[in-house]
């Protein structure tokens, strides 16, 4: 399979603090790729670097084009939807307005109306709350809204940052099930960053392991799950 997203020698820094030290990775078209790692390993920064939200050097290729150094809003319009850490909910807007904003970079009313129906089908709870302010939703519902908002872009690539954070296990399973469905039905490639290694390896096709700003291992998810060192350090059994 061809790589939809490919990073080479990607460096990133906040002020003087270097966080990524030459990261290489690829996301295959149509697949789910996960980046695992401990707190502070640079997982979130990797996603932010893809979207031009931090100062970077190196190369990021999306669909063959180098997108490093472009403005975030321009990268998003290419079809990269980012569900940020903390969900990025517009708390003072209604659920429906949040979704409309997700489709902001698109034209074509018919396609947008179709996608409204599609996301309400994936997340029926959002349909029943569409006139409610998004800030009144529960954490799980806000995470669903964040994924739904990203889908409204009709993206080719979905970046998910810690979707399990702070949620009950049952809600987490539900969200991951829907992500898998979306990936299969809508052919959306996914790059998933997760601390919960066991659930991430459960749905991913490929996995990377990150430590202090570098990728230290990679391979098919199944293979990483069998790896003894990873099992002990990240899966806990």
């Amino acid at each position, binding site marked *: 399979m061809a790589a939809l997203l490919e990073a080479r020698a990607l460096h990133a820094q906040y002020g003087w603090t270097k966080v990524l030290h030459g990261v290489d990775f690829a996301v295959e078209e149509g697949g789910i790729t996960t980046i695992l790692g401990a707190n502070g390993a640079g997982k979130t920064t990797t996603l932010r670097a893809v979207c031009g939200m931090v100062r970077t050097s190196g190369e990021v290729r999306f669909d063959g084009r180098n997108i490093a150094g472009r403005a*975030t809003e321009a990268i998003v319009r290419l079809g990269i939807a980012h569900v940020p850490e903390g969900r990025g909910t517009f708390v003072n807007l209604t659920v429906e307005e949040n979704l409309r904003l997700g489709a902001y970079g698109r034209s074509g009313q018919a396609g947008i109306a179709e996608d409204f129906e599609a996301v309400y089908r994936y997340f029926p709870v959002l349909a029943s709350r569409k006139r409610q302010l998004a800030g009144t939703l529960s954490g799980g519902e806000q995470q669903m809204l964040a994924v739904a908002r990203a889908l409204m872009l009709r993206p080719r690539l979905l970046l998910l940052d810690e979707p399990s954070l702070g949620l009950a296990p049952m809600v987490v399973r539900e969200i991951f099930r829907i992500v898998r469905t979306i990936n299969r039905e809508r052919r959306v490639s996914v790059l998933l960053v997760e601390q919960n290694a066991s659930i991430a390896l459960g749905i991913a096709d490929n996995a990377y392991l990150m430590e202090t700003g570098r990728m230290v291992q990679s391979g098919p998810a199944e293979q990483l799950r069998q790896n003894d060192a990873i099992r002990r350090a990240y899966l806990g059994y």
Partner: protein
Amino acid sequence: MEILVQQIVSGLATGGIYGSVALALVMIYQATDVVNYAQGEMAMFSTYLAWTMINAGLPYWVAFFGTLLVSFAGGVLIERVVIRPVEGKPILTIVIVCIGLLVIFNSLAGWIYSYIQKPFPSPFPERPIMLGVVVFGAHDLGAIGVTLIVLAFLYAFFRYTTLGLAMRAAAQNPASSRLCGIRVGWMLAIGWGLAAMVGAVAGMMVAPIVFLDPNMMAGILIYAFASATLGGFTSPGGAVVGGLIVGVLENIAGTYISFIGTELKLTVALAVILVVLVFKPSGLFGRAAVHRV
């Protein structure tokens, strides 16, 4: 009784003008956390542009809408050229830049048009309007009407258009807005443009009452601060309601409290600011600001 009703109506007319300027302040404050001290002077300068167009022989309403267009473009330009470089800088830096703008516009108007007061036409008939036994100035009623139309327009714009939605989003959560593909910088610039337009309307409505001169908005800006403080700096609707309350309060205090008269009217505005800040700093309709430190 008739005097009271007349005072209330003319209070509502000037209050609508205070409210409009307050609304312009609030729009920029909500989007960027900046209080634009130059809002009044920008409005004054817009009014001079209208005066120039009218004097050049254009019909009033052509000049009116022409001024709105130029003001919008000017507001956008000011944000892009002057405010953009200090975006994200300490608040004092931005305040100083705004005060600089205030002084520049004031001097520029004085330099081009001189400091001599000029009459400014009202689009409404001079003949007073009788409703029952009470006589109203046509300009007062017209100014109230224009204020309401501006409000309705802005409400519809922010509520129902995608651009308006994107502007609200950009004000609330810039990072998330960028991830939706919104050009946040441009949304702020458009916000400045709209605020300049609202200010221009206020300037053109107040000029027939106070006469046009480079300092005409100085007092009105203080009333607008009182209005925005009273209504809450985080509430556009509140700013307008605050304006109407301040306008009426000022008139009634001036009429019925003998020592205030016309000389001490401005004190009413300052008293309102003080009382609100002491007892309810977030204003009547505002939300208390919560900052992570």
